[in-house]
């Protein structure tokens, strides 16, 4: 039997699938978060130069990665939505935005708290910090724009365009520490070179990265179910689910 993945592009078939996946990802997120934080705060050694402050990386780095990655995923769904006209793609884009904005805020906030004791300042207008702040505004802009437009289908399109325009910023954030001189250090972990950190530190960070993945999946699927019900409320199947009171 060949499975046709495209049938899940229909909100009606995707709704129950998302419902089954949410608890799975939520449990995985909780477990990997507990394990990752345990590794980060109890197992990993302190850093030779920074002492204990460096432990912020177990939250800061995964959050920063996720804030960029979610934006790229939003851009992907926006392009699919504009190209194929699939409603569900736009729902996914809108479901992802608050989680992306949250991770972006966490990255900026923990970075500021780390910057004070290590660099000697909470904030500096270097290319990395400024482009990450721009990402925060792009998230807020997307949420504000899509909520401000009354007609949902026009809101979808406008949101998709702003997402695609803003995605140019993501490579700029990533490469900013290479292209320009910045106060922010270069990448400790990248695909092109061996990681420049001790193994247990790296492990803790990667487990936390998985935790952010699972959390984002759980939250966006949970949120997209709400959006599906709201937007499909004119259909029979959605109306039936809503009238039952407790949508499954």
């Amino acid at each position, binding site marked *: 039997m060949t499975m046709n993945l495209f049938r899940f592009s229909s909100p009606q078939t995707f709704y129950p699938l998302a419902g089954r996946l949410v608890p799975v990802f939520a449990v995985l997120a909780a477990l990997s978060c507990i394990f990752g934080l345990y590794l980060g705060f109890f197992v990993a*050694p302190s850093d*030779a130069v920074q002492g204990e402050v460096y432990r912020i990386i177990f939250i800061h780095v995964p959050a920063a990665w996720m804030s960029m990655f979610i934006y790229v995923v939003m851009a992907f769904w926006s392009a699919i939505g504009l190209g194929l006209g699939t409603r569900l793609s736009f729902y996914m884009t809108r479901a992802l935005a608050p989680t992306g904005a949250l991770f972006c805020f966490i990255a900026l906030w923990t970075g500021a708290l780390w910057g004070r004791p290590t660099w*000697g*300042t909470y904030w500096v207008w270097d290319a990395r910090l400024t482009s990450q702040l721009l990402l925060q505004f792009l998230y807020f802009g997307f949420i504000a724009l899509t909520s401000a437009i009354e007609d949902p289908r026009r809101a979808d399109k406008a949101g998709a365009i702003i997402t*695609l325009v803003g995605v140019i910023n993501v490579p700029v954030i990533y490469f900013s520490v290479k292209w320009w001189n910045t106060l922010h250090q270069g990448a400790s972990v990248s695909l092109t070179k061996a990681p420049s950190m001790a193994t247990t530190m790296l492990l803790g960070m990667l487990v936390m990265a998985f935790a952010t993945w699972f959390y984002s999946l759980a939250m966006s699927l949970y949120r997209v179910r709400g959006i599906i019900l709201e937007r499909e409320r004119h259909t029979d199947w959605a109306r039936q689910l809503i009238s039952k009171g407790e949508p499954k």
Partner: protein
Amino acid sequence: MKARHKRFLLIGICMALLAGATALVLFAFNDNLMLFHTPSEVAAGKVPQGRAFKLGGMVLKGSFSREADGITTHFTLTDTAQNVPVLFRGALPDLFKEGKGAVAEGSLDAQGVFVATTILAKHDENYMPPPARDAIDKAHATERTLK
């Protein structure tokens, strides 16, 4: 060509044009996107005259000294090609160290000394536990004595 292929092509072309435009803008503003000037730029006179700017480099080993008042410090910032002497009165960040990166904010005086009002320590991307750091330092010391 189907309608959806046309739409994807349009999206692709728009994205490529947008990326190109962004690249041109970033390229044009390249100098303004740098956080700090280097000692070589100071030597070449390519720094703002008579107003504050940021100077970044490595704190030259053996250049750090503190005056008797306890808060006035002298050190040299280097990019290995050129050196700039720096004078700073105030508290240094914890990570400030000889041989490590630092960014100073201030301006050049008539004698070519950079009078800093703020010092920021630049951290590198290496994270390791203290024993590993000790081992590396020892290895470097051995290497030096063997030379």
